[in-house]
Every structure is written in structure tokens, then in C-alpha cells.
């Protein structure tokens, strides 16, 4: 390490230090990882576009985001659970159960769409807390608790629905996943977000506006370029004919809140601390049990929200829906850089992992290829992504 250099330049640095504080190296590393993932996604898009000729179009990309949103919402929740050394194998079953409940509440009980959404989210949280509570109180690994959930929640979905698929929930509910913001509003949102990002970037890295807080490192230039590119793409996709789909808007908000919390709140930091070293976290006064309980509650809420999007999209609540979504969401989180051993992973990575997987499914179906191939490709992708991580981690040591 360059301890000596630091000591030698100590007096010189003292004057500079208050202005330019160093950035987190861990964050920079994970940023590079996400950039590579985005690069891979873009490459897949271009490849499919050359193959099919219709992949990169506003219509298809807009569809793609809604398709990815369901897996992505689950992957976001799973990401934090995995970071904290927990797992949830029951989210697919919970999704089916909540979907059935949506239809039952609206059709059989005659409750309106808004209230239904609220009730279903609360039930999702309740079941998450129940499983988390069992995990914490009985000390049984979450793998087993949620493996049980995988079974009993699916069974409950069949029992509640009588193994029948209810469909037709009415216009309001249908709009949840199939509606979009008006084009002009979408344009305003995109431009506003782009401007906000540009402003904070200029502020933090250049010192052109306000004090410079971080160094101008290559990774930050790439981030700027990507965000400008993404904004341009978003204007083309979401501000020409159709606006931003509601599920995408929710997903965007979710990613922002979770990424922000991970870096800037105690809760977020403790999720990572528990994953890094549960003993040390407990000894530092962190209530590990309560944190785990909260994470399961959050996962329940997200599973319920994914169910609402799914049910609205299909306009039906089949009890056998989402048999594989649990494993796809786990794959997405892992491809996105989440470690199965805890302490590592970012929600943004997990969500882009979901987008990447949805891109392959979408592209293959556009090309008229059997979607079974998608399963083979996902398997290969998992191994490639994880072994690439291993290789990258071994090198700097």
C-alpha cells in the first residue's frame, strides 16, 4: 500500500482533503460491473435487431420493460435478502396466491380496484412477516421456511381459486400494468430526471457548480455517457407514441429508493453489514432479527406488487402462474452480481440482470425460436456471469 506516499504528502494534502473526499472503491468496482452488464444487454439488443429487424423499436422496447418488470421487482427484493444472507424460495407461489386474491376480491367480494391493491399488498407484507418471524423466532434457515412457503402458498392459491382461473377485472385494474403516462408528461419526466442527474454529476465531479466532492475518474465519465444515452433512448421509446408504462415507473422509483437507501440510510447500510459479518453486526448493536424481519416484510410487499402487475397484465389470476419466476428472479439477481454468500450485490444490478434475461426471451420469440432455448441460454449465462465474477475477484488479490 502507499502508506509512505500518503505520509510524505501529508502536509500538502491537508489543504485539499476537505474539498475532494475520496469515493468508495467498492462502489466503483460494482459500478464497473453494472456497466459491463449494460454493455452485454446492449450487445444482445443489437444482435437481435440484426437478426429480427424489429427488436429495437419503441413498441418492442416498451413491451420488454413491462415483461421484465415483474421479474425485476422480485429480483430487487431477493437481492437485499441475499445480501443479508437470507433467501426466499416462495415468491413465485406468493405471487400466484396474491393474483388469485386480486381476482377474488374484485369479482367475488365486489371490492374496487384501489382497495383491492391495498389489501393484497398488506396480505403480502403479512405473509412476508410471518415467514420472517418463523425464521427469526425458530432459528430455522430461511431456505427451509420459504421452501415450505413455496409449497403451502401454491396450495393455498389452488384452494382459494378452486383450481379455476378467474379473469376480467375491469378497466381500472387493467390499466395498472397496461396503461402509460401521457406522452407529454413522460417527456417532462425524462427530461427532468436527465437534468437532475446532469446537475448532480456536474456538482459532484467537476466543481463547476458548487464544491467538487469527488475525483473525476473514468468510471464517472462512462456513467455520464450512459445516462445521456439512456435519456435519448427513453425519449425515443417513451415520448414519441406511447408514454412510460406504469410498471416501469414503479420499478424506476423502487430502484432509486433502494439504491439510495443502501448508500445513505442506516437501514441500507445494516443490510450489507449483516451480510458482511452477522456477528460483528450484532455486537455493534444492530438488531439483526428485526432487520431480517423487515426484509421479509419488504419481500412480501414486492411479491404482492409483482402479482398485481402480473394479474393486471394477463387480466386473469391463474393459480399456476409464475412457476419459474422465482428461479428467474434469483438468476437475475445473481447475474446482476448478487453473491449467494451475502454482503455483496446491488439492486440496480439485479434489475438489469432481469432486463437482460427478458431481452433474450423477447428476442428469441421475435425470431420465432422455441422459448425452450431461453432456458438453456439462461443456464449458460448464469455460469458465465458467476465465473466471470470469480475471475475478476481473484485477479486484484
Amino acid at each position, binding site marked *: 500500500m502507499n502508506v509512505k506516499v500518503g505520509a510524505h504528502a501529508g502536509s500538502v494534502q491537508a489543504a485539499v482533503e476537505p474539498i475532494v473526499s475520496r469515493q468508495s*472503491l*467498492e462502489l466503483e468496482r460494482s459500478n464497473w460491473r453494472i456497466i459491463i452488464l449494460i454493455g452485454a444487454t446492449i450487445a444482445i439488443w443489437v444482435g437481435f435487431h440484426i437478426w429480427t429487424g424489429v427488436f429495437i423499436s419503441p413498441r418492442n422496447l416498451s413491451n420488454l420493460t413491462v415483461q421484465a418488470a415483474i421479474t425485476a421487482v422480485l429480483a430487487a427484493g431477493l437481492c437485499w435478502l441475499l445480501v443479508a444472507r437470507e433467501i426466499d424460495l416462495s415468491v413465485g407461489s406468493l405471487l400466484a396466491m396474491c393474483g388469485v386474491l386480486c381476482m377474488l376480491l374484485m369479482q367475488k367480494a365486489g371490492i374496487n380496484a384501489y382497495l383491492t391493491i391495498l389489501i393484497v399488498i398488506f396480505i403480502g407484507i403479512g405473509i412476508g412477516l410471518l415467514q420472517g418471524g418463523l425464521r427469526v423466532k425458530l432459528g430455522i434457515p430461511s431456505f427451509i421456511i420459504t421452501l415450505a412457503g413455496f409449497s403451502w402458498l401454491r396450495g393455498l392459491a389452488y384452494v382459494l381459486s378452486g383450481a379455476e382461473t378467474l379473469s376480467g377485472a375491469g378497466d381500472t385494474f387493467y390499466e395498472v400494468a397496461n396503461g402509460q403516462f401521457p406522452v407529454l408528461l413522460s417527456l417532462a419526466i425524462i427530461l427532468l430526471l436527465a437534468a437532475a442527474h446532469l446537475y448532480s454529476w456536474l456538482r459532484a465531479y467537476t466543481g463547476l457548480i458548487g464544491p467538487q466532492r469527488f475525483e473525476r475518474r473514468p468510471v464517472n465519465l462512462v456513467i455520464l455517457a450512459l445516462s445521456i444515452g439512456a435519456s435519448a433512448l427513453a425519449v425515443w421509446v417513451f415520448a414519441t407514441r406511447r408514454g412510460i408504462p406504469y410498471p416501469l415507473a414503479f420499478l424506476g422509483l423502487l430502484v432509486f429508493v433502494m439504491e439510495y437507501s443502501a448508500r445513505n440510510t442506516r437501514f441500507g447500510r445494516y443490510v450489507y453489514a449483516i451480510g458482511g459479518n452477522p456477528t460483528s453486526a450484532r455486537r455493534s*448493536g444492530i438488531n439483526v432479527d428485526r432487520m431480517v424481519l423487515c426484509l421479509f416484510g419488504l419481500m412480501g410487499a414486492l411479491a404482492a406488487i409483482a402479482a398485481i402487475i402480473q394479474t393486471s397484465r394477463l387480466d386473469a389470476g391463474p393459480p399456476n402462474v409464475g412457476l419459474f419466476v422465482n428461479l428467474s428472479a434469483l438468476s437475475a439477481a445473481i447475474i446482476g452480481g448478487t453473491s449467494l454468500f451475502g454482503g455483496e450485490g446491488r439492486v440496480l444490478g439485479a434489475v438489469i440482470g432481469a432486463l437482460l434475461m427478458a431481452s433474450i426471451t423477447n428476442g428469441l420469440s421475435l425470431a420465432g425460436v422455441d422459448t425452450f432455448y431461453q432456458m438453456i441460454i439462461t443456464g449458460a449465462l448464469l455460469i458465465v456471469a458467476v465465473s466471470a465474477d470469480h475471475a475478476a475477484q481473484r485477479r486484484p488479490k
Partner: protein
Amino acid sequence: MTTSATTASAVSVRDLRKNYGAVEATRGVSFDIFPGEIVGMVGDNGAGKSTLTKMIAGDVAPSSGEIRIGGTLVQSSSTTWARDHGVEMVYQDLALCDNLDICANIFLGREITQRAFIGHWKLSHDTMMAKAQNLLNMLEVKLPNLREPVTALSGGQRQMVAIARSVAYEPKLVIMDEPTAALSVSAGQPVLDLIRRLPQRNVAILLISHRLSDVLTTADRILVLRRGKIAAAVRASEIDEAELLRLMAGINVPNED
């Protein structure tokens, strides 16, 4: 034994006993540690050292006896209570979260926050960075980038971060259970140097180690624990390693009452 100055001591332990079923881990231990003093504790495996430290740190409830922290009698055992009253513990291992950076580790569980938009409490990164840097400067600990995850540090550096963390909130007593056991002799040296600098901050230190030479060169006083009792209390300057070994083993020492 010091009995008169109880009020001024950082920690004072009286007739402390702990039974695990039929096993008597400690059998009536009494001692005081004063601010600015390093007290070493040695004893064979199973002598009761860890049990003793856990009772003081609030991790284990004593079967009988009393503990006073800075004059306040401990009513019920709780690690949070002990921490809040100025008892810090440095563990042999598992002390840090590898994935968090140095600054985050120093403030873990005691992050500094400020109100930000829509009223939420946001971590004050800049304040914590400045304070962490200050603390390390004061302790003369030189580390690379504070935003580096602690995985990148050597074992000795990690232990120094753990020690810096333990004195960050002006504790009355820092207990160190084998802080150098996982380190090579050369890597342990800077850690011991750091420990020797701590009394300037008016903190009392209880240092437990199996490396007698470390205890002899670092501590002011040494307590010898044998089968759950204090077999001897000596000044470090008045004893050598061989004598210490004899005291630990109970050879050539008149039977205690």
C-alpha cells in the same frame, strides 16, 4: 488489593462468580482497573478469562457478585447497556464487516445522520469521514484510503481499525480478548504499539493474551487467573516470563486459602 478507591476506578469487580452447571468458570474474582492503566490478564486455557470479560461486557450474566462501571452498579446484564456506559470489546476475530469500508466499520451501529429531504435521516458521509480521519491521526494509525473495504487490509491493519473503533466514543474501559492471537509476531507489533498509546486518552484497558511477552511489555499490571480465581496480581516491571508461567501453573506457590 485496592478497595479504597472504588469510586475512581473505571471498572470494579467484586467477588464475581459464574457457574455453568457444575463447572465453576470463575470462583469469586475481585479487581479494579483505573483510567489510563493497562492491565494484563493471563491464565491457562479454561482459567475463566473469557467468561470474566463476557460478564463485564454484559454478554453473560454473573451467578453472583457485583460489577461497577465508572462507579455505577450493573443491575442487569446487557451488551447495549455496557456499551452505552463505556465498555468496549475488541475481539480476536470477527471484529469487522469485510464488505464495508474502514469509515463504515468505525461507525457501525453509531452512524452519524442528519435530516434530509422529506424528513428522513441521511448518513452524514462527510462528517464521518472527517471524524474517522481525525481519530486515526490522533492514534497515529496510518491506513490507505478510508473508503477501501477492509478486505483489502492486512490482519494487523484490520485489528488497528477494530481498536480505533473501540475508542472512538471515549469509553471508560476497553477489553481486548487476544487481540494479537491471529497475527504474526511482526504484524502484532504495531497493534501492541497502538494499545500502549491508548492510556493517553484516559481509557482503562484489560488485555488478555497467551503471549506472555506481549503482556509483559504492554501492561502496567498483570492479573494471573488460575481455575477461576486470581492467583496473583503483580507489576509487570517486577516479574519475568518464567515466574509468570509458574504462577499460571500454580507451581511453587503456597496454596491459596
